[in-house]
């Protein structure tokens, strides 16, 4: 049943597993969807989608898959009038249901739809309790308060909005994790940097009181000490930010990241430096990039050990000469003897754990202004989008050497 929907969800990027799909099948066999598409929408979502970040993708897949089977409004209005005066609901025992299910033919959606339209053409009054026409309390596939193994419920229990309409509204767009985000979400994303950063080579030098007591008691009261590794985060962060010029449109985004990093207290050390377009002989201590507030890049490189995780934030788009030519620096009156690319390679060499975060959406990377320099830099650093998904994926590169 709906196996295509399963694959469609996966194709959309919703991580659905077989286990979850089987749970949905179990729920459907228990009749938890109550033969309504709206209920099915929520049922399937609650079982298949485990993060609000995927709600939107789910909505997209749902609209695409079920959009076709929505009954047009004008037809149903007429049919709705036929089912208004309902017979009492048909209460069947499971055995009766079973028997009926065998007797009544199962219909697939296309067949159901064809017959429904046929009935709508032929029928011109109310019919209740039968097995053919649209009505209530019967065993026809159309109507409500009756029973049919693969019928279409019309009216009955009221639902103000249909599932496809709910899905089509795409109210969860804001929660997509491949979209840019706020400070709070950045913080959560950065917390991932802690998870994998327990230092495995640390000495076991902290007394585990609880385990010690337990072991001692197990040892019939003779003292047995238990030591564990400290749970401190030893991760150090080195943040380099491109400012000014082409980065201005992204300043809000960058400042959110900046705030988040500042607020995230779990790093052992954080260093901030700024640059404009590309890194050369000097790194700047504040966003104004004034030479007076700068440090020699070589000096910084020497002072920060290779354990620092380097995150460079920038759009990586500039004139090719700024990257590849000596003297390509954009500041008037300043000369760089080595091209920017050499400096970037030097950074990468010094910090094996490093990533480049780019505020420009990844789909534009190949056909925008500055794509030559962007792609050249991508050869040096693993590059990710400055989005929740991007940061999450970048943590992999920040924790494992490539």
């Amino acid at each position, binding site marked *: 049943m709906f196996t295509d929907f399963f694959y469609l969800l996966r194709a959309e990027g919703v*991580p659905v*597993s077989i*286990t*979850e799909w089987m*749970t949905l099948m*179990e*729920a459907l066999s*228990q*009749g*938890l969807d109550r033969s309504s598409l709206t*209920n099915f929408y*929520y*049922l399937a979502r*609650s*079982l298949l*989608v*485990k*993060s*609000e970040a995927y*709600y939107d993708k789910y909505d997209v897949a749902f609209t695409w898959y079920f959009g076709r089977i929505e009954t047009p409004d004008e037809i149903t209005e007429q049919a709705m009038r036929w089912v208004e005066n309902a017979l009492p609901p048909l209460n069947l025992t499971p055995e009766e249901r079973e028997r009926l299910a065998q007797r009544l033919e199962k219909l697939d959606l296309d067949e159901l739809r064809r017959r429904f339209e046929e009935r709508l053409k032929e029928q011109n009054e109310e019919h209740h309790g039968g097995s053919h026409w649209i009505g209530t309390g019967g065993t026809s596939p159309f109507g409500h308060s009756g029973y049919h193994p693969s019928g279409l419920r019309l009216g009955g229990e009221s*639902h103000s909005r249909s599932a496809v309409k709910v899905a089509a509204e795409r*109210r*969860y767009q804001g*929660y997509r994790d491949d979209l840019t985000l706020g*400070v709070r979400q950045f913080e*959560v994303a950065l*917390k*991932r940097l802690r*998870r994998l950063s327990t230092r495995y080579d640390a000495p076991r030098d902290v007394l585990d009181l609880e385990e010690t*007591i*337990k072991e*001692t*008691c*197990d040892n019939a*009261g003779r003292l047995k000490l238990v030591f564990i590794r400290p749970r401190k985060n030893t991760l150090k962060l080195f943040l380099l930010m491109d400012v000014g010029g082409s980065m201005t449109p992204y300043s809000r985004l960058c400042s959110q990241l900046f705030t988040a990093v500042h607020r995230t207290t779990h790093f052992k050390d954080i260093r901030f430096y700024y640059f404009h377009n590309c890194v050369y002989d000097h790194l700047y201590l504040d966003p104004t990039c004034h030479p007076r507030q700068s440090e020699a890049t070589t000096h910084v490189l020497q002072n920060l050990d290779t354990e620092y995780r380097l995150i460079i934030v920038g759009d990586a788009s500039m004139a090719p000469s700024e990257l590849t030519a000596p003297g390509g620096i954009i500041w008037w009156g300043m000369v760089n003897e080595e091209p920017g690319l050499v400096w970037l390679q030097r950074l990468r060499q010094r910090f094996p754990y490093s990533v480049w975060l780019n505020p420009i959406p990844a789909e534009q990377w190949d056909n925008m202004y500055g794509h030559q320099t962007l792609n050249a830099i991508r050869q040096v650093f693993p590059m990710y989008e400055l989005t929740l998904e991007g940061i999450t994926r970048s943590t992999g590169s920040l924790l494992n050497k490539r």
Partner: protein
Amino acid sequence: MNASFPGYRGTDDYVVSDDLRNVVDVAVALSRPLLVKGEPGTGKTLLAVSIARALGLRLIIWNIKSTTKAQEGLYVYDTVQRLYDSQFGDRDVSDIKQYIKLGKLGEAFISDAPVVLLIDEIDKADIEFPNDLLWELDAMSFYIPETRETIEAKHRPIVIITSNAEKELPDAFLRRCVFHYIEFPGPEMMATIVRVHFPDLEENLLQEALKAFYWLRELPGLQKKPSTSELLDWVQALVIGGLRPERITAEMPFLGVLLKKNQDFPVVERYRNTAGRVSQLRR
């Protein structure tokens, strides 16, 4: 179970949306844990309270803290007490059973009647915490090696788990849950919620308060957006303050009830000054 299950319809003090109600039914029918996420103040914790009340079941709350370990929810073996007793006590220390103290999960398992178990703020705990509970929540049983006993659930409890998304939960854990994200309620839903708490509230006052509240929430750059509980406090303050409704949007009194961050006050001031009255700003 689904045939006899009456279905959850919310309670008089808790307004529940259609989709959430459906999801609760699904979780109960499939007897799987229901994981609820959502902005702070959307009533995640209160959901469990309301379910317990609506179904007439006992509620067991397991509050998770950063130091909570999965084991504590099952049982604790009080070895210190036993050691103490062995030296000074008069109890029979060979009976280990008396030193086994069941945790909240264990308590829920041995209960004679079905219960609602709330595991509150599961994301506060260590990243491995949910994984450590996988088997116990799946099988609804656990083994105590010290006494060679297996504690099995007499009735599968209705498990409600809340998360504030401080940490990502492991996939294996998520696969076993029914998931729901509680959206921040829209103005209509919010009006219903406020009316539940203040049945005698003047309609005029309510509308003005909501207008100001949603205006505030939509301001860009707020560090902490006010949530439902703050709105309720604010309405309470407005009622006690006895302000005329038309002054609410114009003056935004008792702003401190709504805003909890120092940095947010200047933001609001700035928007009020540039845009004039709040009411004119509304779409």
